[in-house]
């Protein structure tokens, strides 16, 4: 937390280590490059795969939104409410 706040007060305080740490965090999150050896993947490739991954997640959200709105439209009101309430309880 504190490292982020200090970096916002002046860009000169960002260290190479912080960048490396963040890039490696991204590496672990993106499935495309998680399985490759970390020293073989350059930072620009990490960024590229990250962008691709975010785009594919956005597409999935779009598809799921479309599917959910279709499901809402086709099932009748009562069972929609019942399913929703059931999901709420199942949490």
């Amino acid at each position: 937390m504190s490292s982020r706040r200090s970096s916002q007060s002046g860009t000169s305080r960002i260290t190479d280590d912080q960048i490396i740490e963040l890039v490696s965090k991204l590496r672990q999150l993106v499935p495309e490059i998680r399985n490759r050896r970390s020293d073989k993947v350059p930072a620009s490739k990490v960024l590229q795969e990250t962008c691709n991954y975010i785009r594919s997640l956005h597409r999935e959200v779009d598809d799921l939104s479309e599917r959910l709105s279709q499901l809402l439209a086709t099932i009748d009101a009562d069972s929609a409410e019942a399913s929703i309430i059931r999901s709420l309880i199942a949490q």
Partner: protein
Amino acid sequence: MNPRRSISSNPASTVKSRFTNGFLKALLRINRQRITSTTAYTPREIFRGYLRVKIAADVSMASAIGSRRAWSRAMLRKVRSHGRDGAQVRRMSFLAMRKRNLYGKKIKCVEEDVGCYQANVLRKLVPGGAAMDMCCLLGETAHYIKCLNTQVKVMRRIAEVFST
């Protein structure tokens, strides 16, 4: 429940559960609006239905995070201002972003070899990314990806429940 995401030891207050509750309530509202509308099956209404669900999902996730993160703050700001002045705000913020990237107030790239071009592509994908420096952008991206993953998982699960 992923312990990294909870802000208290109470399992009911994880990001995932806050998102799920908020999103399901929004779906209930959307469902009720659809029932009272008489033009529910025109192509326009179908598109608006999809958009409503998508916006509900994004807003629910940003609200579950709250103001803790720059990306969630940016998303909530954008959605609120859309309600007031839709197209005007979109056009103005696009121009403002172009100016920042091309002229004087350029966003400084701290590490040349981290790929400034890719970083700018990333800025467009992450909410609020245009105004962040590299360090902030990478941290926000990591958190944003985790939240998108949660969002997708929950939406998939809800779609499964509806399909039965």
